[in-house]
C-alpha cells in the first residue's frame, strides 16, 4: 500500500508509477478511482457522464461503466473536510506519489444515453 494525502480543493489526480487515479464525484461524495477502463484500459477520467448521471462513457470504445461499479472498486480512502487520505493498492512506497489538478470530464454530463 502507498499512502497519498491530497487536498480536494487543490488536487484531483494521483500518479503512482504508471498508474493514475482520479477523484470521481458521485451523489455528493468523492471517490478515488483507477483511471483505467475495465474493458481495455481506456482513460475513464476523459469520459463523460451519461445524462442520468449513473455511468461514465469510456472515450476509447464507448463502454458505459456504472458509477456503482467505480464506487465499489474505488481506492480505500477517508475524507476529513477537504483532506483525502487514500491507500493505493500498488507501489508499496517504492514509487513517489505525484498530485495534479486536471479537468475530470467524467464529472461532467455530456453523452446522450
Amino acid at each position: 500500500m502507498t499512502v497519498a494525502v491530497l487536498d480536494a480543493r487543490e488536487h484531483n489526480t494521483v500518479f503512482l508509477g504508471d498508474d493514475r487515479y482520479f477523484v470521481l464525484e458521485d451523489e455528493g461524495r468523492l471517490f478515488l478511482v483507477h483511471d483505467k477502463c475495465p474493458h481495455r484500459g481506456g482513460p475513464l477520467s476523459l469520459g463523460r457522464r451519461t445524462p442520468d448521471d449513473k455511468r461514465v462513457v469510456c472515450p476509447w470504445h464507448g463502454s458505459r461503466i456504472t458509477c456503482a461499479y467505480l464506487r465499489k472498486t474505488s481506492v480505500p480512502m477517508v475524507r476529513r473536510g477537504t483532506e483525502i487520505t487514500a491507500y493505493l493498492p500498488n507501489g508499496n512506497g517504492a514509487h513517489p506519489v505525484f498530485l495534479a489538478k486536471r479537468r475530470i470530464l467524467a464529472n461532467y454530463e455530456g453523452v446522450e444515453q
Partner: protein
Amino acid sequence: MAVAEARARRAAPLDDLVAEYASHRLFRNAPDVHVLGNPYRRPLNAETIGEIDFSRPIREDQFSSYGSLTANRILLNFYESESILLPAAGLATQRKDFDAFYADDLRETALALRPELERYAFAFLDDSVDVAGTWTPELLEQHFLRIVEEADSTVTPGLQAIRELAEPRDGADMLLIQLALDGLTEASAMARNLGGSYGPEQSELFKIFIDEFGAGVFEAKHSTIFEKLIASRGLKTDVHAYWHFYLTGSIAIINYFNYLTDDHRRFFRYAGALTFAEWTFAKFFTDLATILRELFGDAVDTHYCDEHGHIDLHHGRMTFENLLLGLARKHGDEVIPELVRGVEEIRLLARLTDEEFIRQIRWADELPRYAEEARRLDDPAGAVVETAQVEPGHPFATRTFDEATVVSVAAGEVDLLVGGENPAFPLREGDSILVPAGCLHGLRAKTHAEWSRSTAEA
C-alpha cells in the same frame, strides 16, 4: 403520560419544544455563577434561546455558535438523565429536584427532542467525514497506526497554548474545568455498551471499564482521583459546578460518545472513536502532568494524569488490538468503514475542541487588549443587536456570539466572566469589550447597569 399526549408532543414545532424544555424550573438561570451541591440544576438561558433556529443543523464552521452550545447543553441533560447522579452531601434538600430531573414530563420532551437536536448538533459530521472504498483489517491497522503516530509526535496545541499565556495558571485551571465535565462522571457513556453478547470484544471493553472504576475500589475510581486533582487546585468538585463555563467542544465530545452508545447501530463508530481516544489519552495526560507540575509544583496532585498516562498505554493497545481489529476481523470489511469513521470523527471533534479552547484562553488572557480593540471599533458602533438593564442578583448566564461583537456599558458596572475561576474583568460606564465569535462569557451586574451589544464592524 398518555400515548396520545406523547405523540402530540413529538408533533409540536421543534423550537416550541425546546423553549418548553428550557423553561422548566430546573433549567432556569439563577444569580449563582457556580452551581453547587445540586447536579440537577442546569441553566439553559430560556430568555435568549429563541434566537436559535434548531431546524437547520450547524455546519462545521458553526461548531462554537450559540445554537451549538445550547443544543449540546440540552443533549447533555438528556443523556445524563439516563444515569444516576446524587449530590455528594446527600439528597435531603434536593429530593424534589431529583424527582423532577428524572420525571416523565422531562423524559417525554427529551425523547421528542433528542433526534432533532442530535441532527442539529452532529449532522455536520456526515459532511465533514466520509469513508469510501474497500477496507481490510490490514489497511485499518496501517491507517490507525499512521494517524496515532502523527498524534503522538506532538504536544496537543491546546496544552502548548497554555504555556504561552501571560497567565498560564488560569489557562491550566480552565482546562481542568473542561475535563471536569467528563472526569467527575467518567465512563458513563461506555457503560451503555457493556450489556448484550458480542464475544471477546465485550470482555475487552469491560476490562477497560473496570479500570475506569478502580476495580470496584472507590478510592481508585478515576472520578475519585480526578476530584483530588481539581481539589488540589482549589477548584470546586461538585458535579457540574462549572456548568456555565463548559465550552461547546467539551460538552460535544461527551455528547458524541453518548450519541454513539445510545443507538447501538452506531456501535462500530463508537469502537473506532474509543480506540483513538484511549490511544491518544496516554500522551495527552503525560504532557498535562508535565505542564501542571511546571506551573504548580508539588502542590498539584497529578495522580489522575499519571494514572491515565500509564493505564491508557494499555487501554490504547487493548482497544486497538482486541476491540478495533477484533471487530474488523470478525465482522468483515463491511464494518471497517464505520470503525474508520469513528476514528476520524473523534479526531475532527478533538481538533475543533482544541481550537475552541485555544481561542477562549487567549481571549481571556488578553482582555485589556480586547477592550482597547473595542474602543477602536466602537466609534461608530455597528448595528445594536440587544440592550439590557441589569441589577445585582439578576440571573447569571453565559453564552457565545455567532459573530464578533462589541459589548458596551452605558451605565453602572458589570463584571465580565470568561472562565470558571478566572478573575472577573470589570466593565464600567463607557467601557467596551470585543467578544470574538464563539468565545464563552457572562456578565454579572455589580450595580444597576445598562449595556448593549453591537456587531463589530471593522
